[in-house]
């Protein structure tokens, strides 16, 4: 057993209202730059829909992820190492910007510079790629809210797959269809195909928290990672010529803050926490023969932090105590392994993704309510989950490689939670058969309800900080580097003298906060100085 820790995310799709706040705040924080105009580290897709980039799930075309070779071993779907190097001069499977969308701005000057006249001036759209006037024809969420689904709905690769299996067709007529929102970020996979595809070795998975990053200094712009990632969540910055991707906001996580997308999520549907897993089992689990067994196989890789044996091994592997404790309180671990309501996105890509989703019950409830039935009655819901085969099978194509079982089990738990909590809210005694029907106890259902519906901030985000030492450094950074009066024209203006910081005119504060000896003593000490000792130096 080789225990490793991973910061993982779960999203509760029932609560996503498709407001795109996560996408916008992420864009403002990370991709609001030249060369990244077309890039959304976080995007929200309406499903059924083509996604971003268009039809990225069609792996026969884009060749992302892993597959099994004849001997049953994992190989990159786009081919082995030698093929990758032979194809290094151009990447035949690289999506062009137009597969995402051509970013644009508007000629706002037309509005301000137009002469007085009878016509209203128009701000023409102008391409940010070619600089020329352009016709806006597609964008990252062009088919938002099923826009154009009657025409383009068939282009969703998962709709096509569902059709192959279900006799009934996915319908796009207004009164017959269903939809839900799917927010997507990088999956920070346990078996990342992008990392495996990088010829330069610039992409890596961090040992401490499993975050997958691109080393901007070693990336040489070969673009193999873009092809390798089946979720198409590694992007090529066309100005710098380097790959960039979702960083899981690691500078925030390291100090215990949730990612920007989580922090700003209006529906409070995102959960962040630590998952302990056995790194020795990853390859074996990813090479399971049957696609449908991959979900269970991945569950088998995760370790139970309540198990003392696991805790001991984790400690031996150098995982900090507060990380192990965080793993015990992890909401992500609860939703994935304890309640088993969260499911992975496209396990069939064999990358072992670590951003999981609670499938939406709302399409079922909505359909039920529209027919005049009670959408919170358990029997009605159970029956509806089964009879509304299309949403169920479509969800299964997305979350469990087509296996309806886990999706149904998860939805039934959510349905049972509705029924159970309704009884409590109405002052009735909850019917114990409701909980029994989904194999949970009333208490468990109430705990799950607290996590899913009450969803307190500190329950949703259980993030241990990077290191105790790091925390201390941050504490020190609260002391300003320079004098507060040291601004342009201020009484302390002047900065460092020609002979260094302590030369020339003395500036406030005159107390020695730090000197050579205390610095050296602290840097070479075996132990962290206690708070009292630190105070003495002031």
């Amino acid at each position, binding site marked *: 057993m080789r225990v490793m820790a991973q910061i993982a995310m779960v999203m509760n799709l029932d609560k996503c209202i498709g407001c795109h706040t996560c996408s916008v705040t992420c864009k403002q924080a990370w991709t609001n730059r030249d060369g990244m105009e077309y890039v959304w580290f976080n995007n929200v897709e309406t499903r059924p829909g083509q996604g971003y980039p268009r039809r990225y799930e069609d792996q026969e075309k884009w060749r992302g992820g892993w597959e099994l070779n004849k001997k049953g071993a994992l190989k990159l779907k786009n081919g082995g*190492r*030698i093929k*990758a*190097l032979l*194809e*290094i*001069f*151009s*990447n*035949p499977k*690289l*999506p*062009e*910007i137009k597969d995402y969308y051509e970013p644009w701005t508007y000629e706002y000057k037309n509005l301000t510079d137009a002469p007085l006249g009878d016509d209203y001036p128009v701000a023409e759209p102008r*391409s940010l*790629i*070619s*600089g*020329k006037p352009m016709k806006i024809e597609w964008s990252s969420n062009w088919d938002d809210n099923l826009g154009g689904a009657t025409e383009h709905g068939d282009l969703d690769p998962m709709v096509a797959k569902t059709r192959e299996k279900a006799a009934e067709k996915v319908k796009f007529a207004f009164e017959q269809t269903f939809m839900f929102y799917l927010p997507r970020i990088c999956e920070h996979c346990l*078996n*990342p195909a992008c*990392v*495996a595809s*990088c*010829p*330069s*070795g610039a*992409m*890596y*998975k*961090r*040992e*401490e928290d499993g975050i997958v990053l691109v*080393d*901007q*200094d*070693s*990336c*040489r*712009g*070969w*673009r193999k990672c873009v092809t390798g990632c089946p979720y198409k969540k590694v992007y*090529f910055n*066309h*100005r*710098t*010529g*380097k790959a960039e991707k979702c960083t899981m906001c690691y500078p925030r996580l*390291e100090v215990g803050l949730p990612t920007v997308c989580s922090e700003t999520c209006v529906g409070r549907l995102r959960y962040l926490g630590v998952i302990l897993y056995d790194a020795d089992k990853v390859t074996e689990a990813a090479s399971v023969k049957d696609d449908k067994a991959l979900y269970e196989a991945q569950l088998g890789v995760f370790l139970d932090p309540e198990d003392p044996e696991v805790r001991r091994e984790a400690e031996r592997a150098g995982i900090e105590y507060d990380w192990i404790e965080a793993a015990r309180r992890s909401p992500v671990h609860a939703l994935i392994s304890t309640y088993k309501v969260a499911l992975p996105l496209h396990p069939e890509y064999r990358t072992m993704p670590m951003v999981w989703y609670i499938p939406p019950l709302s399409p079922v409830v909505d359909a039920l309510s529209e027919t005049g039935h009670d959408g919170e009655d358990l029997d009605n819901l159970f029956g509806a989950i089964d009879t509304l085969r299309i949403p169920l099978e479509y969800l299964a194509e997305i979350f469990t490689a087509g296996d309806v079982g886990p999706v149904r089990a998860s939805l039934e738990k959510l349905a049972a939670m509705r029924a159970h909590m309704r009884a409590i809210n109405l002052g009735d005694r909850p019917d114990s058969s409701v909980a029994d029907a989904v194999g949970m106890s009333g208490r468990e259902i109430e705990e799950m309800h607290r996590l899913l519906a009450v969803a307190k901030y500190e329950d949703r985000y259980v993030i241990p900080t*990077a*290191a*105790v*030492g*790091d*925390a*201390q*450094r941050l504490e020190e950074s609260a002391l300003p580097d320079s004098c507060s009066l040291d601004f342009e024209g201020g009484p302390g203006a002047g900065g460092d003298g020609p002979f260094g910081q302590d030369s020339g005119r003395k500036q406030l504060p005159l107390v020695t906060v730090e000197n050579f000896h205390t610095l050296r003593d602290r*840097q070479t000490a*075996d132990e962290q100085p206690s708070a009292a000792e630190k105070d003495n130096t002031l």
Partner: protein
Amino acid sequence: MRTLLWGVIPYVVLVLLAAGLAWRYRYDKFGWTTRSSQVYESKLLNIASPMFHYGILFVLVGHLVGLFVPESWTEKAGVSEHTYHLFSLYGGTAAGVLLVLGIALLLYRRRTNAPVFRATTANDKLMYLVLFAAIVLGMVAKLTHASGEGYNYRESMAPWARSLFTLQPDTDRMAGVPVMYQIHAVVGMALFALIPFTRLVHMFSAPVQYLFRPYVVYRSRDPRRVGARPERRGWEKTGS
């Protein structure tokens, strides 16, 4: 003049190349990239870029053999000068045609595709000029001296090139070399000098190590970036 061209400039170029590479590696790792334009346009690039790159790799091998394998060695191996000339003429020309076609297509793409042209810097333009000139001049030099036995550069240019590395440049060898060959050599040296300072620098990051490393790379957080400091060399700590 001869000493300057063939005795001084080659060393200036070598120094520029080595120092430039070291400087770029030290101060501009972030800029060390192919700066691919494939996301703008893929179809033409998928044909032209492999043509160009495979062509230039073959031409590189040709130059290395021609300049650094002495004539006496091939003679001993039983390859006559005539056979060698024919081989170099046909092989070199085939690779050269591939190369010229490739770069012509790439230049056409770069000029006509608006996004690609927009992403072309002045530095790129200078580099393309010198690169294209070196390639075309090389082809012209070879083909204008192709008749009969052709021009045997292995008796003049090759020994000169080798003498550069023994630090005793034999500039007299370059005396009778046809002008076209001389121009080609000078432009070639200019190209070498440009490598560290243009996007050509990506040739030094051929990712051969990819063949030998494990698929998934793990890295630890940079210890300098967090509070804990790495262990220093010294006696083991007591009591552990």
